[in-house]
């Protein structure tokens, strides 16, 4: 459960105050499938970063799974990110020198899990994303769709409650993009909350709830017409 109350995120750029988020109030229940749309600079990426605890709001309250997060220190935020939040980026952000397996394993390595447990879980997630035969390839040896699926596997390996995807299909062709969305949606069907930032109406149309932003404010928030559930 994500509860944002009157969230502001202001940046000082030169002598100008940029209101990237301006009084955003938003509740996203567990298991929802939400798309966030809006023109460039509307604050949608900032919203995603705030939800993902990468960015701290200037003002307002953010309660994640019943816990207030605005008073947590950096280490506590890192721990919450590790356990509850999975990130997927437009440019994949795989570590180029590590294999697919090692990339997926990385969050568990950082969290200090035992090697045997890591291996089992990593293989499980790779299998779920049909990447078993690509496990020992490096990112440079993978196609764009495969890379993004590795990134999804990495986001899932710690069993988060929220998946945050920032333009997950932005660097992919149509077919790979559809594959990646299908993978994300099947995870969502398993109960995980999925929040997708996108420019693409087609992508947004697949979500069950659409949020539109403009100038740091939510200007539209409604179930997708004709969406089931």
């Amino acid at each position, binding site marked *: 459960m994500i509860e944002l109350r009157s969230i502001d995120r202001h940046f000082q750029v030169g002598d100008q105050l940029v209101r990237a988020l301006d009084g955003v109030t938003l509740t996203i229940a567990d298991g929802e499938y939400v798309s966030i749309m809006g023109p460039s600079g509307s604050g949608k990426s900032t919203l995603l970063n705030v939800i*993902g605890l990468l960015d701290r709001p200037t003002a307002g309250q953010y309660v994640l799974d019943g816990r207030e997060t605005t008073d947590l220190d950096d280490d506590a935020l*890192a721990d919450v990110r590790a356990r509850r939040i999975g*990130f997927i980026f437009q*440019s994949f952000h795989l570590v180029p*020198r590590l294999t697919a397996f090692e990339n997926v394993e*990385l969050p568990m*390595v*950082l969290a200090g899990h035992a090697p045997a447990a890591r291996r089992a879980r990593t293989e499980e997630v790779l299998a779920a994303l049909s990447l078993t035969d690509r496990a020992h390839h490096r990112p440079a040896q993978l196609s764009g769709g495969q890379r993004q699926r590795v990134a999804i596997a990495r986001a899932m390996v710690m069993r988060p409650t929220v998946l945050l995807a920032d333009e997950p299909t932005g660097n992919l062709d149509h077919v790979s993009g559809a594959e990646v969305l299908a993978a994300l949606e099947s995870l969502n069907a398993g109960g995980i909350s999925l929040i997708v930032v996108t420019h693409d109406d087609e992508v947004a149309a697949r979500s069950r709830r659409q949020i539109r932003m403009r100038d740091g404010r939510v200007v539209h928030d409604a179930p997708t017409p004709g969406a089931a559930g």
Partner: protein
Amino acid sequence: MRASDLLHLAAESLFRARLRSVMMLIAMSIGVAAVVVLTSLGEGARRYVTGEFQALGTDLLIVLPGRSETTGVQPGLFAGETPRDLTLDDARALLRVPGIERIAPLVVGSAPVSSAGLTREVPVIGSTADFYYVRKLSMGQGRFLPPGELDRDMAVCVLGTKVASELFPQRPAVGSSVRIGDRRFRVIGVLGESGRAVGFDLQELVIIPVSSAQQIFNTESLFRILVQASDHDAIPRTRLTVLETIKSRHQGEEDVTVITQDAVLATFNRIFTALTLTLAGIASISLAVAGILIMNVMLVAVSQRTAEVGLLKALGARGRQITALFLAEAVLLSVAGALAGLVVGYAANALIGRLYPVLPVGAPAWAVVLALVIAVASGVVFGLMPARRAAKLDPVVALAGRR
């Protein structure tokens, strides 16, 4: 994060950035090798000189005129006296002292030595037959000065090999005669290559009887008297006896200095230890330079891997973990560089040992430990700043910094 995973990740990124890693390894290993080799040379020189002195025998006492160990105003100056000279009579008196095996009075000067129109200015030593034994000389041809009374003035001389070959390029030196100053001497021997005389080049000197030297240089006084004690353990006692003997001959004035070979040895030891320390210090500078290089390269690595740092933060890495990751890279590099440096240093030592077998090279243990400690410490110190910088990156900005 587990320590083994930390090392694995650090090693992996070093291995992937091979050129950068190799460069830093080379820098660090040069530093460590420099410490090892330079201190080995210093230590080798010390051992060489110590060895030379020990070969002379540590049962040697050197008597020189004047007191060198007074502090403040010399008593002799107060009384309006100058120190008395050492004379042949003093030397003769020492011969009667128990516990003394041999004495060799020395007169040293420089004089033109000529033969058949060839002239050279050469150091001339006036001494006695016992000088041969005291200084453990060897003969190339002929024989050394004959034994006899100290004041027996004989016109014979012994030449160093170089002097002999320069004055007698065509004919044998032994049996010929040379002119030293304004006197003629018959050459009765040429020194061998071996033998030790610290402070003199044995190949370039002429040895004549002491009283002849006194006449040539027109002096009654001796440069010094070398005394060989019969028993090493009795040296402190013998030293006192020698002092007493001379004192009683000099109207109770203690105006000579008696140095034991041990004291000379200790002095040389101190000098060469200081030299080795200096060399170690100079070499340590190259270690510090290597450390700064590591810092630079790590800073570049951090800025190149900004996006990766952002990713690690998004994946839930704490600031300390990111610091640890980059620090581990720097430390791994410096440790590997230090080990490589040790290998290079010891290889260089082995090479030097082969090229110059007389020089007993060998790195002192403290220098090896010092080099390793400084190498690893500089990895930590200079790796810390870039690592901290990485840990402090704002994850949003870092992620956006993707190339």
